[in-house]
């Protein structure tokens, strides 16, 4: 792998965020250093509070209301590697500045965040790893 594809190490001053390294269009290493739990990941995605199903649909027959602004999560694990999914969760705007996909692991560069959410990423590192491991199982 050539050095040219290695992006500078993302720097995050906040103690809450684990540092991560972007390589090409992916984050190869787990944010927590451990693999996530796919069952917990499924529950996180299906919980509307976590906002995924506002825009995406997916294989959740029990959820009546799913969005159609964004591609279905069905087959996400076949389209992307875990490392690619991780960057798309952490900071999709790095790949497409105009995307409506929020950066789920970012606390800087935001405007007028309401008090309850200030200084917190949308999902924690553990939650992102759980979701990445779940999405990786969606292979067809």
């Amino acid at each position, binding site marked *: *792998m*050539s050095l*040219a*594809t290695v992006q500078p190490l993302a720097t995050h001053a906040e103690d809450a965020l684990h540092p991560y390294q972007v*390589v*090409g*269009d*992916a984050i190869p290493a787990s944010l927590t250093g451990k693999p996530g739990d796919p069952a917990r990941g499924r529950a996180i995605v299906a919980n*509307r509070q976590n*906002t995924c*199903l*506002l*825009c995406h649909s997916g294989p959740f027959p029990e959820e*009546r*209301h*799913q*969005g*159609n*602004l964004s591609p279905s999560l069905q087959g996400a694990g076949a389209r992307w590697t875990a490392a690619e999914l991780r960057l798309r969760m952490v900071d999709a*705007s790095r*790949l*497409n*500045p*105009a*995307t*409506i996909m*929020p*950066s789920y692991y*970012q606390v800087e560069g*935001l*405007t*007028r*965040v*309401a*008090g*309850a*959410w200030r200084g*917190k990423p*949308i999902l924690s590192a553990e939650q992102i790893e759980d979701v990445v491991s779940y999405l990786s199982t969606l292979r067809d």
Partner: protein
Amino acid sequence: MKAARGTQRLALGVLLAALATLCSAAEIPLSERRSGYADLGRETKAMQDDDTANPGMLSVLEGEELWKTKSGTEVKACADCHGDARASMKGVAARYPAFDASRGRPVNLEQRINICQAERQQAKPSAYESKELLALTAFVAMQSRGEPIAPPDDARLTPFREAGRQLFFRRQGQLNLGCNQCHDDNWSKRLAGNLIPQAHPTGYPIYRLEWQSIGSLQRRLRNCMTGLRAQPYEFGAPENVDMELYLMWRARGLPVETPAVRP
């Protein structure tokens, strides 16, 4: 090899992103602008269309009483100066917010009514979202029902409308989204179960089934900001009025529907 492919894909991604930015910068062409009414279910449409079934009419009727009620140390009613609202208030809501010279900035219809109460009637101004202010506003706005939204051609409003436009396009909140990303770029799609409207303020104050009450445009704007996990602006804040000004300009030509009914 994998790395080279990654770089190529990244370059393609950046190119696509640039194109997407160009495309999404477009506002909805005037010919495609439509009221949220167009997408209502049959029952909700029927509720809005029938004054005896429209729950917003209760507020309008209360407003009609207030219009005729003497108040303040001047012991004057709105009707004492303005006469029959059906004539004097026709078209007024269609051109608000309007520039207020003494304040040096635009005021919305609620603020105009409050200014009148304080200065002409020498009465205590009504609180934002109070039953009384919503009622008077609904009564006044209904006199413009069917009139096309017609923002005044007043150069003094331009910087405020532009400020509202900037707010509309500004990403905000923990979800980091601009109003335009849903209401210009993705209207007609579904956010979970809800159809995304173009967000034209054609029928305020509206009776919203989710609220089980009538409410102002600023209440609706604050709801949307809460959804983005952003700190809403206070009722009456200049930012909210600027946004109203931009939204009314964006909706120019669409007919006023007050009191509209929405899900």
